[in-house]
């Protein structure tokens, strides 16, 4: 009897269980939250990449998305707010044999951590940065972020957001990223595909994943979860190679998705080896 139950449980396990700390599930993520979908896309991509799992490392900052590092059954680091990228930079430079993924949120990566993002992209550190963009600070209860749309309501912009959000793919491109893509959680196959491509690529890769935060952003901006998903389906335009300056998130005329940048230039580790380590 007990053996049967065990067998049944084994059968019903999730295909990504081998990459999860199942003893830490359920996660802290709210019902309807988009982080889980981005997280599974990431794990699926890791699995499909067939990289030696021993050599894959996930680094996160602080926030809802930052908790991903705590659920992945890989070497994983949950660092300080905004500092996942410089931590990952040190780790990657010290250990070039590792595949380093930074998985974090929009507030962590682009407000408090914005400086580190542009410099890691400029240096072309060989890491993949996955940003779950849910347009606000979820963990602290829904405050304005550098990605919050103009006039949107958050707990710190109750009159409407007077600021303008970042165009993240443009920022990544201008800073020197060698791979830039944007998808929504509805486009999970494309998202998985992009993560897989970026893992195979040497250089700084950036993937933005648009995701709903029904508990905070959705509630305050009268966006029901299903309506958001519908918007992701009906109000998005897939345009690979689109010009980065035209990638503002435009909810009226359609949000442009796709792979925008895929170029090659020497990554930092490689240049350092060649320029500084070789005896001249």
């Amino acid at each position, binding site marked *: 009897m007990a053996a049967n139950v065990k067998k049944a449980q084994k059968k019903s396990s999730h295909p990504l269980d081998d990459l999860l700390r199942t003893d830490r599930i359920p996660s802290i993520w709210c019902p309807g939250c988009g982080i889980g979908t981005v997280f599974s896309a990431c794990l699926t991509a890791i699995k499909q990449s067939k990289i030696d799992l021993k050599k894959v490392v996930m680094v996160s900052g602080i926030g809802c998305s930052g908790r991903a590092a705590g659920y992945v059954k890989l070497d*994983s680091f949950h660092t*300080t707010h905004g500092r996942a990228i*410089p931590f990952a930079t040190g780790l990657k430079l010290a250990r070039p*044999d590792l595949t380093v993924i930074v998985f974090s949120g929009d507030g962590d990566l682009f407000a408090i951590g914005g400086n580190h993002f542009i410099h890691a992209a400029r240096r072309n550190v060989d890491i993949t940065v996955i940003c779950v963009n849910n347009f606000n600070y979820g963990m602290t209860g829904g405050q304005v972020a550098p990605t919050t749309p103009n006039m949107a309501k958050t707990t710190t912009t109750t009159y409407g957001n007077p600021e303008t959000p970042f165009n993240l793919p443009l920022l990544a491109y201008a800073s020197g990223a060698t791979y830039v893509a944007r998808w929504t959680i509805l486009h999970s196959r494309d998202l998985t595909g992009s993560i897989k491509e970026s893992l195979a690529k040497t250089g700084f890769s950036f993937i933005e994943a648009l995701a709903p935060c029904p508990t905070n952003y959705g509630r305050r901006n009268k966006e029901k979860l299903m309506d958001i998903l519908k918007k992701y389906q009906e109000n998005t335009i897939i345009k690979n190679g689109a010009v980065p300056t035209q990638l503002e998130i435009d909810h009226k005329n359609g949000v442009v998705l796709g792979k925008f940048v895929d170029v090659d230039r020497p990554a930092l580790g490689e240049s350092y080896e060649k320029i500084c380590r070789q005896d001249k």
Partner: protein
Amino acid sequence: MKPAINKGEYFITGDIACAQGALAAGCRFFGGYPITPATEIAEHLSVKLPKVGGTFIQMEDEIAAMASVLGASWGGVKSMTATSGPGFSLMMENIGLGICTETPCVVVNVQRVGPSTGLPTQGAQGDMMQARWGSHGHYEIIALAPSSPQEIFYQTITAFNLSEKYRLPVLIMTDEMVGHMSEKVIIPDPKKIKNISRRRPKGRKDSFKLYEPGPDMVAPMPAAGEGYNIHVTGLTHDTRGYPIINVATHKQMMTRLIGKIRTNLDDIIQTESYRLDDAEIAIISYGISSRTSLAAVEEARKRGIKAGLLRLITVWPFPEDKIKQLAERVKGFVTVEINLGQIHQEVQRCVGGKVPAFLVGDFGGTIIPPERVLEVLEEAF
């Protein structure tokens, strides 16, 4: 590959001696940011590290520098950074992450005059309490205060050894005067240098617990990429490294983080006594001030004042027992430091009013001349 250090006699600054000590200790990663008067450490290591298979990176700020050092350390590489006041302030949050996640590394603060931008090119000893409590929360820290280029060389090695043994960031609290002075430094044969490296885990990887301590209260440390599937977090965590947000787990974690230092004080604390055996007045000092204090002791003895010096090489954890023992037999204390009484307050606490304790302090920017110490020795006692 070239040897990391070349034995011999050199005439070099404290900053360069520090960089040489780091190389001798096996440091192979430096993440930093330029700041007077610590820049020379970064410059020297930017030249030397790549030639011994190491990595130097100048990060975008000191926050990033400290984060990169922690990342490299988890890669299994001995890592360090060097800075001064403003940069030290920026590093504080990630020093706390290093404490909480038990990440070995070395942070050098070549102290200059604060607060704020202060006197960037002039020395002080005003960051001693920041070294003790600068990151939020209650924790134990190790901080060393070398007083000469030769001593910086050796104490940098000691700092790495302590950080690897007890798994925490170890601070070297030197000052601009020591950092920028040139003196003879003897670099020994590398074979004669004793380097300690973090204890490595043994046994099964699948049942491995990241923070399961040994008898010394320190847990063995794997590196990333070895198949242990470690999870490292700055949240309160249990022996598996998993975040557990409750009071009992926090108590358990903190008991060990604090205990691993407090139960090993004899191994950690270094002091040097000079003419204390028959002394009636004990001078307590460290760094550059301990050298001017030494001159004051010599002169005082000539004038018939029985003064002696307790030089603190380790400032944190504070050598309380030494001070308490002295308080039982001397007639008074004088603390000499280039601030307005940071270590003096610690001395007062340990003396507990048994005998008078005076301060010879300063706002910073200049050394405290022996005459000022002598004045107090002559007038106060």
